[in-house]
């Protein structure tokens, strides 16, 4: 029942945490420069494509989507969720130690909760085994 992940699979999990958080940060940094986009000013989205922060953010988020899809091929959705949430912790800690932002007590509490969540899930199996699906997998020929 208990799955041990390969080192390459841990690398994918770390890539998910980093690409999601850094990609989101770059995108929001870029969109701040582009300005407010609403339904009446959709043309601004075109301008956003020429912003280097937005471009870098899009590349990272495409990377995130590829890693996430790969991870879903060998792990449960409920196993991966705390990993994706850990990206928020990475953003908060980057802000604290790199940009020297102050973190309020409630944000520290949020960080602690997400870290605990990762701990809970990491202690269990990464994948629910389904008998009929195992047979299907065997049919694919592994």
């Amino acid at each position, binding site marked *: 029942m208990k799955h041990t992940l390969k080192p390459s699979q841990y690398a994918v999990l770390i890539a998910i945490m980093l690409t999601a958080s850094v990609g989101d940060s770059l995108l929001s940094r870029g969109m701040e420069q582009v300005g407010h986009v609403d339904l009446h000013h959709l043309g601004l989205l075109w301008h956003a494509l020429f912003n280097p922060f937005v471009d870098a953010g899009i590349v990272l988020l495409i990377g995130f989507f590829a890693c996430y899809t790969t991870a879903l*091929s060998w792990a*449960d959705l409920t196993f991966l*969720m705390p990993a994706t*949430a850990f990206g928020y912790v990475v953003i908060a800690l980057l802000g604290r130690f790199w940009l020297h932002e102050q973190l309020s007590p409630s944000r520290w509490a949020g*960080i*602690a*909760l997400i870290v605990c969540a990762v701990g809970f*899930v990491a*202690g269990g199996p990464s994948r629910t085994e389904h008998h009929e699906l195992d047979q299907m997998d065997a049919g694919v020929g592994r």
Partner: protein
Amino acid sequence: MSSQTLHVWSAILFVAALAVAGEVLIAAGMRQLGDLDDIRAHSGILGAIRAVLTNAKFVVGALCMAFNFFAMLFALSIADLSLAAPAIASLTYIGNAIAAKLFLHERVDHRRWLATAFVAIGVLLLAH
């Protein structure tokens, strides 16, 4: 509840529901395919990409996610970023856990429920 509040919360629920539908469909598609590493070993990286892109559940799920992206832009234009972003993230995590149990038949044990609750509350706290 004012009509504006109702409007904002419907948008938030709609965006979260789209995200849950997208993630669960993609997860179902990938579970159907099996370990991508094995597929890549067998038929190369292009074969693996082709296997993913020709999986109907994956494609519909990815469309939901794309639609979710634009719905999110719309939701953020009518709601405060500090309300909408964490509310959507939190509801998506809770919805994902329920949908994963119901539709993907994942074994969501007490550890995972606890993790889901911690993540949902943690994301809300981090936004402030």
